[in-house]
């Protein structure tokens, strides 16, 4: 159960930051979906809804996604480039239902660095950066690996505006459940990026597997090698959804599926 005494909807980021740092048991709330399920007693909750952070802006080199942008906007917003929209639909479309995805925000999920998140894995595969109000810009991989900047506010996430092909795969015990493992691959100008999440820990880049594909290229042979490399390099853990051994085995299948999709997409782009 979530309980708190005061709800704030500040009109300026500085006010939000002041409230956050004035009260020890205060918290910024995104969509609130995950907080709802926990058992938290707070004094103050800060809602960023009035700060125009729900916009997505496409530039030549990058797409700026405001922290209050919802998941459903990413998969359906007319102003999101079609190719990105399709990839987000593939990545986020299995999360409960549209009703929830209309509420869950990019900022809430990225800042919390939820291990189970499908979005965080997809964003890490793109690369790019998160922008925090006081700490400034941090690459998304560093943000997921470092300790969290203390009581800051995530303003936006920036991802590259161009990629050649991308694929997202996940394994679930049932439809709309949390993924027991997820994996995203992007292919941009000859370079592969592979992110694995729900391990069950937070999303992580598969650097050795990326190096293998970036040096040898993608073929039916290297797909098998990449799957073996991924299973060996990635640390997997156990939780109620799956054991580390199971995740390790599933990772090979997911990567093969994703790389085969990439191969097909690249071929169809060439034709």
């Amino acid at each position, binding site marked *: 159960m*979530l*309980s*708190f*005494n*005061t*709800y704030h*909807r500040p009109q300026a980021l500085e006010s939000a930051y002041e409230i956050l740092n004035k009260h020890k048991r205060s918290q910024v*709330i995104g*969509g*609130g*979906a995950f907080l*709802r*399920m926990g058992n938290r007693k707070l004094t103050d*909750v800060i*809602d960023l*809804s009035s700060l125009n952070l729900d916009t997505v802006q496409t530039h030549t080199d990058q797409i700026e996604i405001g922290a209050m942008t919802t998941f*459903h906007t990413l998969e359906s917003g007319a102003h999101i480039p079609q190719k990105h929209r399709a990839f987000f639909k593939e990545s986020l*479309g*299995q999360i*409960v*239902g*549209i*009703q*929830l995805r*209309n*509420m869950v925000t990019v900022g809430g999920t990225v800042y919390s660095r939820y291990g189970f998140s499908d979005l965080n894995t997809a964003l890490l595969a793109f690369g790019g950066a998160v922008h925090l109000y006081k700490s400034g810009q941090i690459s998304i991989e560093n943000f997921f690996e470092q300790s969290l900047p203390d009581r800051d506010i995530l303003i936006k996430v920036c991802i590259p505006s161009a990629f050649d092909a991308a694929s997202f795969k996940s394994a679930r015990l049932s*439809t*709309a459940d949390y993924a027991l493992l997820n994996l995203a691959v992007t292919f941009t100008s000859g370079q592969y990026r592979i992110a694995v999440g729900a391990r069950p820990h937070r999303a992580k880049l598969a650097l050795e597997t990326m190096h293998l594909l970036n040096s040898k290229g993608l073929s039916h042979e290297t797909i098998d090698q990449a799957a073996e490399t991924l299973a060996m390099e990635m640390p997997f853990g156990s939780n109620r959804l799956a054991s580390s051994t199971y995740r390790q085995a599933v990772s090979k299948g997911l990567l093969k599926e994703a790389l085969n999709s990439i191969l097909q997409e690249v071929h169809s782009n060439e034709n």
Partner: protein
Amino acid sequence: MKIKFKLNGQAVETDIRPDAFLIDVLRDLDCLGVKKGCDTGTCGACTIHVDGKPALACVQLAAKADGQEILTIEGVRDQAKEIGRYLVAEGVEQCGYCSPGTIMSILYLEEQIANPSDEEILYYLNGNLCRCSGYTGQLRAIRAYMDSKYKEVNKNETCA
């Protein structure tokens, strides 16, 4: 704290606890068609429209509704009755607990896509769980409802 919002087209002002969730406030305002199912944002029984988009009343803080337009099943009685007839015709109105939320999702789908494929219906309805497991029948009912609406619109356009 006080909040003001539009509920089914009517201006409402009410006192709430800062940490109240919208579902409880709406039910206190006699919108009893907003059902409390899982209460964790999973089942879709509490589906409402917030500023024209489907949302979960059990997840949304009531304080956030200040200034918003909220539509519940009580605000769409005629459409709900019509869709209900299709659900009954397919024998999928069993316990009926999920129906209000499901109907709110069907209405949103209808606004978005005039003639949806079965795949699109499933995509839009994925967030509405039915304990009686009437999914196949629900799909038939929604298919029949959408087809009839599509024919109705096209017939009117042809006549015009």
